[in-house]
């Protein structure tokens, strides 16, 4: 029942029309790819969904609830987690701590509980740790749990970002260029991982430039160009679509 729906989203920054009437859906169990040339507004779509930007028109709804005006932490609590195009880990914290932060919205003990170390606080801490270790293990990072994030190799940091998003127990996960900067072996690994995430019953919406990754795993693709949706459909259809080819390669008949 976790359907993310964007209907006629427009975003304007001053005089710049970043998105114009974008509508699409991420259904239960879907893996949707969001592609388009640089500056097409893909990350803006993510920022709109997660509440970083407000829409100028249109609305985003999740499970039928409109997300308008909700602060990002509320949206995460509803089950939409994301990663970032340029890695935004908590650099000075360990991998485990990074992941544990994501459990914040799934836990409730306050200051007094922490100071008094009440039994319920200890239980909750143990549960947070366990869930976080599970998320690390899912991404194959359990041996790096106590490594400080900034000391980890780039590929591992990418995986840690996904682990952190997963630790928030999402129903939908937004991946912003998860394959950026990965070598071919790591990319293959990532595709496999994304498949496993989908097997958990988590819907995936991802922005990606690596067409091998996108065409390999996405079941549905949305193409943006200059903030406008120019095509939508199955990977095979998108590959043949003349408008998409034009947007990527330029028009030959100029």
């Amino acid at each position, binding site marked *: 029942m976790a359907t993310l729906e964007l209907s006629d989203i427009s975003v304007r920054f001053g005089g710049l029309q970043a998105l114009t009437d974008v509508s699409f859906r991420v259904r239960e169990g879907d893996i949707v790819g969001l592609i388009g040339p640089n500056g097409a507004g893909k990350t803006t779509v993510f920022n709109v969904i*997660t509440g*970083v930007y407000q829409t100028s028109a249109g609305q985003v709804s999740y499970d039928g609830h409109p997300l308008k005006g909700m*602060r*990002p*932490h509320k949206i*995460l*609590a509803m089950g939409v*987690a*994301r990663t*970032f195009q340029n890695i*935004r*880990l*908590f*650099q*000075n*914290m*360990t991998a*485990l*701590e990074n992941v*544990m*932060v*994501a*459990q*914040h*919205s*799934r*836990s409730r*003990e*306050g*200051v007094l*509980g*922490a*100071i008094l*170390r009440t039994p319920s*606080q*200890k239980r*909750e*801490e143990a549960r*947070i*740790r366990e869930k976080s270790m599970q998320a690390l293990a899912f991404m194959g990072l359990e041996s790096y*749990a*106590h*490594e*400080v994030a900034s000391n980890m190799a780039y590929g591992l940091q990418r995986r840690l970002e996904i682990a*952190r*998003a997963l630790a*928030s127990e999402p129903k939908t996960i937004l991946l912003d260029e998860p394959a950026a900067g990965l070598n071919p072996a790591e990319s293959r690994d990532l595709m496999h991982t994304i498949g496993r995430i989908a097997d958990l019953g988590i819907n995936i919406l991802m922005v990606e430039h690596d067409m091998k990754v996108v065409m390999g795993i996405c079941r549905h693709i949305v193409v943006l160009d200059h903030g406008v949706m120019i095509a939508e459909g199955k990977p095979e259809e998108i590959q043949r679509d003349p408008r998409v080819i034009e947007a990527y390669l330029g028009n030959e008949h100029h």
Partner: protein
Amino acid sequence: MTIRASKLWLGYGLAMVWFYFLLWPLMGIKPEGLEFQTSLAVWGKVAAASAVLLALYQLKQGGAFRFLEKPAQAGAEALAAVTGRVPTWLALCVVAGAAVAFPFLTERYAHDVAISVLVYIILGLGLNVVVGLAGLLDLGYIAFFGVGAYTYALMSVHFGLSFWLCLPISGCFAAIAGCIIGYPTLRMRGDYLAIVTLGFGEIVRIVINNWMSLTNGPNGILGIKAPGAYWFNKGSFEHIWLNNLEQLYFVILGLAVFTIVAVYRLNYSRIGRAFEAVREDQTAAELMGVNTLRLKLLAYALGAVFGGLAGTFFAARMKFVSPESFTFIESAMVLAMVVLGGMGSIPGVILGSLALIALPEVFRGFELYRMFVFGGVMAVMMLFRPRGLWPAKRMGVRSEEKD
């Protein structure tokens, strides 16, 4: 090697020239005219001493002391092996024992210094929650100290409420003040935040200074009661006032221990992690489910509570409060302790407070040069140990700790 050496001496020469230009205006410009002798004499001594040190350093780099290094290193390793085997709880017991035995082994003057150090440890740890954990630069922290002190002073003088009852009340008042100051600054970051908190700190002091009818203005409030206690005496409990410094030492020691435990536990809790996430990357923290606005407000309030507790004790110990105890320089001192000791590190802040309060007392003879040395030490520290005397531990220990 020779190129490096000549570069080193060139640097030394430049540093000495710079130092003379710094020194001469201080010592050589007098109403009677310009004078060079005294400044040159001092400069000569400093230059000679540093030349000797530099020469020694070069000899060491060249390997002239290798015959000394080996046994020294072996000794250090042996020592590290011994200390490494001592469990933490034993080390803590030794520290606790020393803290308890301290007043019985020392003079009145030492008690006085120790009490100041402990007050500043509480302040430092409180500010550490705001600056070290949540990463919000607060230049007006002493205002909460003032709020706590005045709360107890007024409650004690007007209503005769006891110290112990007023501790939580002052904490609450300080927390409210923290929220009032924190709220408008929630959406600010970095430099802007620092300037606004600086302004708020001054506002609190000026309000205290001018609200004659309530605070008696610059004259301050007299006649504040010391903490009371029940003591077993001749078969029955009787009420006594904890007036002398030894007794007060134990009161503040207890408060400091409470603060240390509380801050330590917060540090390793869900709240502490959220604070740190806000410090590291506020946007990412918000997107990972942390209500950053609320958490920042909480950081201000929590920091303020500890400031308020310290203030309550301060009022009870001095039996007098006046606005001049809460000036900007005090905020700067507390901040310096946190930065010097190591942001986010509890032992670091304790060390920082010791260094900034106890050391100046030890070197009372140089009091005139205190601020001068203070500035110099801070500059050197930030160059060589930018993360503080005792940097916050990372490397796995944090979330690994068990209970």
